[in-house]
């Protein structure tokens, strides 16, 4: 299926290649470079590029293109999903997935790729199995290895591949048994100029970090499982049990994993935790424009809105902006026309605002594009949908684990369409 893999960095150098079948010349990447040149933005390269003899399927992560070469029919998502899995594995192993990290660990990368695919068909993609085969490099282990000459490759043979729970390695032992769950929710919203919501959805995930000895069998129940409209599970979750009782019952993988992703239906009203008041105007004939932006919290159940970051793409005609933030710092890039304002925490008593003027190119007519305002924020200890974990029980092992649950809400794709109100008034 997958013939070869090329890793290409932002400046267009192939810095790693791996072949699972006969070697494919790296000149095949020329077609990719052509497509890259044609695309205006790096993310606009088509994911599938046909060439006379091969097909190139690529994904872009961390400014590295992972280009897979295939020769015959295969579901494109199959390849894309696999490539993302490769990136996730690298991230898991090296902490980051950058060109430098890959180059430093090129041998481990090669060993991983060798285990993940056999003849182009995925073989072992579960991180637990891989970690049994090839131990992730840590500083300590690197030091020890250089001194003792021992290796990263597991001495033992991977039993996980043979078991009925391929995602969990056997013989796990911890002195402190802990299970942590993070409920993270993201709001995606589009809000129009008048402040009314066009779409708002909540996407959530439950990420887990489970360090438990032996073969624990966990059940996790929610206070209000009906909120969850659409769910997708880690393969460990027993689907039948969820269907029947709305309980998550599973034997967890060892370490970090994503237990569940869910979607809270758009039928439920989504509480929007922040609001934006803005006034961006240009006067016809003058080379000045006014800019005013105020943020405020709303429906946050008393929790603080933190790490607020506002960014907006100003019209091309804007030369510079001279603004005055009441708190935080702002930057304006005159080349990309991107304004970003790092607000920090919103204090409900004293609302943050950004006011000032913009200078336009002299003689240019007033811009008529819509700047959109993107907002990012975080609210700790709150799942905006109201989802609550009821209890976590463990069966199959005798010790008492330490359990912890954390909630967080953040902005996913939060976009405020701010139309140039004043202009419309002037023109009308």
């Amino acid at each position, binding site marked *: *299926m997958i013939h070869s893999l090329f890793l290409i960095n932002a400046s267009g150098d192939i*810095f790693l*290649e*791996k*072949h699972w079948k*006969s*070697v494919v010349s*790296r000149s095949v990447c020329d077609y990719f470079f052509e497509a890259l040149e044609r695309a205006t*933005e790096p*993310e606009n390269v088509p*994911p*599938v590029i*046909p060439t006379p003899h091969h097909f190139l399927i690529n994904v872009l*992560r961390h400014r590295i293109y992972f280009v897979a070469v295939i*020769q*015959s*029919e295969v*579901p*494109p*998502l*199959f390849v*894309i999903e*696999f490539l*993302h899995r490769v990136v996730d594995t690298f991230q898991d192993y090296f902490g980051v997935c950058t060109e430098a990290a890959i180059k430093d660990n*090129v*041998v481990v990368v*090669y*060993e991983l790729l*060798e285990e993940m695919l*056999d003849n182009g*068909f*995925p*073989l072992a993609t579960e991180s637990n199995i891989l970690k049994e085969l090839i131990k992730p490099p840590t500083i300590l282990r690197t030091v020890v290895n250089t001194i003792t000459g021992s*290796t990263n490759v597991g*001495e033992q*043979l991977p039993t996980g*591949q*043979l*078991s*009925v729970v391929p995602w969990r390695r056997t013989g796990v032992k911890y002195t402190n048994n802990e299970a942590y769950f993070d409920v993270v929710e993201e709001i995606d919203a589009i809000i129009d100029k008048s402040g009314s919501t066009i*779409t708002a959805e909540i996407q959530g995930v439950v990420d887990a970090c489970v360090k438990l000895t032996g*073969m624990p*069998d966990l059940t996790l129940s929610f206070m209000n499982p009906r909120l969850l409209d*659409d769910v*997708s*599970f*880690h393969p*460990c979750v*027993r*689907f*039948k049990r969820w269907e029947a009782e709305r309980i998550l019952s599973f034997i967890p993988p060892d370490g970090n994993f994503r237990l569940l*992703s869910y979607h809270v239906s758009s039928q439920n009203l989504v509480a929007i935790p922040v609001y934006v008041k803005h006034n961006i105007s240009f006067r016809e004939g003058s080379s000045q424009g006014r800019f005013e932006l105020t943020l405020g919290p709303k429906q946050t159940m008393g929790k603080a809105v933190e790490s607020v970051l506002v960014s907006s793409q100003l*019209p*091309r005609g804007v030369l510079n902006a001279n603004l005055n933030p009441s708190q935080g710092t702002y930057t304006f890039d005159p080349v990309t026309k991107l304004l970003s304002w790092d607000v920090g925490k919103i204090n409900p008593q004293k609302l943050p605002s950004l006011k000032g003027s913009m200078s336009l190119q002299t003689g240019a007519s007033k811009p008529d*594009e*819509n700047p*959109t305002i*993107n907002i990012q924020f975080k609210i700790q200890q709150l799942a905006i949908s109201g989802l609550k974990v009821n209890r976590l029980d463990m069966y199959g092992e005798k010790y008492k684990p330490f359990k912890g649950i954390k909630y967080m809400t953040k902005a996913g794709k939060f976009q405020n*369409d701010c*139309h140039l109100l004043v202009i419309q008034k002037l023109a009308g």
Partner: protein
Amino acid sequence: MIHLIMDTFLRYLKEREQEQLVKILSFMFYIFRHDDLKEMLDSNKDSLKLEAMKRIVAMIARGKNTSDLFPAVVKNVACKNIEVKKLVYVYLVRYAEEQQDLALLSISTFQRGLKDPNQLIRASALRVLSSIRVTIIVPIMMLAIKEAASDMSPYVRKTAAHAIPKLHSLDPEQKDQLIEVIEKLLADKTTLVAGSVVMAFEEVCPDRIDLIHKNYRKLCNLLIDVEEWGQVVIINMLTRYARTQFLNPNINESLLEDSSEKAFYASDDEEDEDKKAEAAALVKRKPYVMDPDHRLLLRNTKPLLQSRNAAVVMAVAQLYFHLAPKAEVGIIAKALVRLMRSHSEVQYVVLQNVATMTIKRRGMFEPYLKSFYIRSTDPTQIKILKLEVLTNLANETNISTILREFQTYIKSMDKDFVAASIQAIGRCATNIGEVRDTCLNGLVQLLSNRDELVVAESVVVIKKLLQMQPEQHSDIIKHMAKLIDNIQVPMARASILWLIGEYCEHVPKIAPDVLRKMAKTFTNEEDIVKLQIINLAAKLYLTNSKQTKLLTQYVLNLAKYDQNYDIRDRARFIRQLIVPTDKSGALSKYAKKLFLALKPAPVLESPFKDRDHFQLGSLSHLLNAKAGGYQELPEWPESAPDPSVRNVEVKDSVCARRTVLTGPEGAGSVPVNMILLAHLTESDSGSGSESASASDESGSGSESEESGEETESEKEEEDEEKEKKRKKRLDKTKAKKPAEESAERCAIHTSYQINTIAPSGSIKMYELLHRITGEGLAVEYCFSRQPFSPDPNMVAVQIQFTNNTNSETKNLHIEEPRLQSGMRIREFAEIGLQPTGESVTVVMGIDFCDSTQAANFQLCTHTRKFFVSIQPPVGELMTPVFLTENDFKKEQGKLMGMNEISEKLTLGEKCVNEHVIVERVTATANLSRVPCGSDKECRFAGKTVSSGCLVLVTVTTKEGGRAQLTVNCEKMVIGTMLVKDIMQALSQ
């Protein structure tokens, strides 16, 4: 050494300088090339070897050629250090193709590995061996694959499945032999193998759909527990399979569509065809009943929509789109919308497929309209696809919201996207008559936009819209005529000119004036504009020659000397047509008809129309072109092929059904499934019910024979008791092995999971501790015939504790095993607490060293110790081996003389047929049946658990109930004992 020095050097230099240095010194490198690496590889130290291999692999990764090191590296193929070994494998697989002769040196290492007792080593040896692309070793590979395909370990069998496509691509002539292996592996019942073998099937023989029949139900049931990548492959294959085997569930609906179409286009003179159609319709009108197997597929794939893997979700979605009744397709929409949250590449592919689906089944995605709204941060290609979906979803009810959304898009800064939005508005306007005027007005307003691109795109779209009803819109045409002074985009100018020319009758005063202006600027225009000027001139000449004759002449003269020959050609052609001369032919009479014919309005179609003839989710669908190796999705058959081909053989089911009755544990999967299916088929009155019910009958027949001697009541009691036990034990197994329980997500399928390798047969319980001796603690044991996973050389013994005391029993464990030399015991984990009246089942492993000596040990509770012993019947010391008839004969040939024991016997009264013999033998010994051509002979094969010696049993029946029993086994003691046991079983 050179390398080391260089490395230190380079570390202190900045990257740029490094590059220069590298260039300068590359020559030096060439001279000393890899000498140091060779030295390191030849050294005795593993650490040096490892370092060298790491550097070599790093070079391979960068695409550097290191093939000159081949001899030095391959020497290390048998290195003890596991990492060195692995890296050597990497190297070997990469360069073996280029260095065929040298690569052969390594083969023997792998051949040895193939015989290793450890399954993981066997698997890895096969994996590397099959990856070496050297044609000479094809026969070795073929042999290795065949052997591995009947290996005990499912993991090795999985590797064998992986090796099949490798060999096939190396030597396609092996196809026939490989298909045999595929057929064998398809029958495998483990989830581990299923995905890989279907992948091999897809690559080697995707057209051999007949191989699937027997395995169809099994694949459906296993599906949920196959690993994700295998799921994708299986689902795609099953989609194709279902299209050939089942009827179109939407047949009635499509019939309705058909008939309405026919009424429309019906031609009276073709009566014959009408009759035929009627006849066909009559046949079709029969109420549609879905094949239970079709339903099974739909039901078992549905939970996979919840998978975290986008490829799996997409695979299920396409399966539902292609196979499900219209009313059920809707459930996939939610899952697909969920995928839109994923990475942009995933979004791209999903949107492409959604776009195709929305054309055929618009209603499905309507509730999720808002999920397709465009965000300013989306990449342009995603924006354009979303736009496509939104346009497809537009209908009378939602068009106003969609148009409002489109209006905001037009103000975006992304110009490609704005252009696409305007086109989308145009398409909405053509599709939905009600909003045509609104759209048109909106587009006309855009004509005063400051951005020329917006204006140009609007002009092009307006032109297309106006063509639909030009009469009402002469003012718009006038407005556009004015625009010609300002607009510079050639495509837009050309469009305006074409419009004026086409509808010059609606604007009789303006048209000549436009031509006048254009004649002035003719020489400076772009080619497409010039062509349209000539066109306009010609049309005006024909309708209004009085005013425009001179102008036309002038334009045509200009065109005559144009640089572009197309334009010169066109001018010449038009002049001949419209200006009557004596030489001009008959055509000029029709000039008016030619130029001013009523032109059909263009249909603005989605580029995704008709893409659904490609299987959705496939690469070919995405590219809208057939990719190599794409398998066409067949049309539904007119009438369903015989569904009974999917029935699993009757023989199996008899045997299996008996297991349900007698064997309390490991109740075979086949039976549950068979009974279920039998019910299904019966209730649905499908033709397949015959064979299924036949199996029922024969099954119950053998049962009544069995229990004939017992009185009715006794039997009932016993059954009840057994049922209870079974339930209890099942419960316990669950508690004990929660791991296995995960398999339970699909009810029927669990049973498959329980035992997959051992052939079904009754399982006898033995007493280990009577409840009186045990002071209330009763212990029974049986040989579960499962492979004992922690140690394959041990026999699995399942022990059941029942606590009949009034108090709890604590700390149940084993102490002081007293064993014969060589025997080993793997104890069960201590049972902490056993409440009153409960039973607990555990499994322990004993390596009996292929002898029937008893294993003695103490069974301890918190208060007491009991001496107990387990003595295995000889038949439990072996595990089944799958052999073909040929292999069996070959192996038998090797075990002649001393190793063969043959006895004559008279069969017992009840051993009337083959089934009973098979049953009796498999009940006595843990052997598997070997397929055999003659019905006079039954063959069985197995191997001893501890040493792996083959045990071959042949029973030949003769006239008058006489028979001959032959056992071939290297271990004569075992052979002799086995003969005795089997004789006893058969003569009863």
